[in-house]
């Protein structure tokens, strides 16, 4: 009996230690701002000076919160490292400022708590600014986005009016959901009221599988994401020509954190002028969505 207790204790220790080891090691390999530092989301930032809102000239790390299930803006690449248009752009900003980029994948539902509590410095991940201006300090917009409807190719649905009486899926806590619930000018509550049901999903994969299986008729999402999903999944889907709205993506900072926001704005302008933004947009196939223009 004693022997087994000893073995079990040893195993426990080994796992405990390795769990700690794997996370703390990433802070030492800091320059490699890849999956290593991102995967150790919690403890990697231990090397940070601490306070988020103190003097910006002393900043050494830049903690970006993103949804890792949001290609092409933020996702896990073929090598298991976090990448995407937004993350590479953030990396470019960090390179200019000499900060270390810490990629922290967050639970999208708790993005506000993560930001307000200082766990992350900004939300940079296809983050729609329209309608959220009162809640965050936003950078200059960098992508012209629109919310669109994706339907099955053979569904016979060709316009938003055809969606009447249909079941429509939408990601929880997303801009598309807010839009479909908004009664204000430009909101689509009236359209949503014609749906048989507005179904909320945690992620686009389940939404697409349900769309494929026919248990829902359409999915509302951002055009960039829709393009990526259709490209990855192949034939069988189409985007309705009528968009629900047009809106902009920007980097969201904690309300009042203008100091950090100004630095990022300045860098974004510079990155636009030197062509980095256009280059990245090309790489991620979203060139026609970029709204930053070189001077």
């Amino acid at each position, binding site marked *: *009996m004693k022997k*087994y207790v000893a073995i*079990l204790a040893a*195993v*426990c220790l080994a*796992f*405990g230690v*390795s*769990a*700690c080891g*794997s*996370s703390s090691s990433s802070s030492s390999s800091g320059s490699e701002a890849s999956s290593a530092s*991102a*995967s150790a*989301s*919690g*403890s990697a*930032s*231990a090397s*940070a000076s*601490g*306070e*988020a809102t103190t003097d910006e000239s002393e900043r050494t790390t830049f*903690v970006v*919160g993103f949804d*890792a*299930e*949001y*290609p092409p803006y933020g*996702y*896990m*690449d*073929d*090598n*298991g490292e976090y990448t995407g248009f937004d993350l590479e752009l953030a990396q470019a900003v960090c390179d200019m400022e000499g900060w270390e980029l810490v990629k*922290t*994948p*967050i*639970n999208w*539902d*708790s993005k506000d*708590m*993560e930001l*307000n*509590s*200082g*766990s992350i410095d900004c939300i940079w991940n296809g983050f729609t600014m329209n309608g959220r201006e009162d809640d965050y300090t936003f950078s200059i917009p960098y992508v012209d986005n629109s919310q669109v409807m994706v339907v099955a190719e053979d569904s016979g649905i060709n316009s938003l009016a055809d969606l009447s009486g249909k079941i429509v899926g939408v990601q929880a806590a997303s801009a598309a959901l807010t839009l479909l619930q908004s009664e204000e000018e430009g909101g689509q509550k009236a359209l949503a009221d014609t749906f048989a049901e507005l179904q909320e999903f945690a*992620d*686009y*994969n389940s939404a*697409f*599988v349900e769309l494929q299986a026919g248990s829902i008729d359409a999915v509302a999402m951002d055009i960039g994401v829709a393009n990526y*999903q259709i490209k*990855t*999944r192949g034939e069988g889907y189409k985007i309705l020509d009528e968009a629900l709205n047009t809106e902009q993506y920007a980097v969201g900072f904690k309300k009042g954190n203008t100091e950090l926001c100004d630095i990022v704005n300045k860098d974004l302008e510079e990155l636009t002028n030197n062509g980095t933004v256009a280059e990245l947009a090309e790489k991620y196939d979203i060139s026609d969505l970029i709204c930053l223009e070189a001077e």
Partner: protein
Amino acid sequence: MSFSTMLMQLSSGMVKTTGIFFWTIILSLPLGLFVSFGRMSKNPALKNIVKIYISVMRGTPLMLQLMMVYYFPYLLFGMNIRTFRFPAIIIGFTINYAAYFAEIFRSGIESMPVGQYEAAKLLGYSKSQTFIKIILPQVIKRILPSITNEVITLVKDTSLAFSLSYMEMFTVAKQIVAKEATFTPFIVAAIFYYVFNFVVAAVMEHFEKKLSYYR
């Protein structure tokens, strides 16, 4: 993404899952025992406090508790919680599972016949000697199947660490699914969980056999 990269990513997530699992077991079992003492205490104040604790822990979702633990220092004191993510997860899981374990311990301890305490007293055993040498070994024997139940549930509950943005195995699986647009990572994740639980169940069964003397 190649299949081997996917396995690598899921394995690194599995290391984190296992970390949560073992830390929770190591901390919550002893804590549960002490909580069960409080629950059976003759002091009505202590007994009622512990009763409320167990009732809240069992009566509210674990996901909510995790979020409360993590954001509590910030919401109440405005503290910086950047390095608090992993500790918060362990604390959250531990206080939740301790409540369940406490009730399991209580069921075991209260099932012991009073005659054993009386006999031990007659033989000159002190109260603590009686408990440690006579009662506890029998209790462990009796409650092992219920403990196994909870431990297996814990393995699967580790996926709730996602609510605190901790990249445990299931979260990684979801990210790969989002990128690859296939269900394969979920199937692999299911196999990982099953194998882990299979091992847990086998180890526990082994202990049960070892402890089934006098039968």
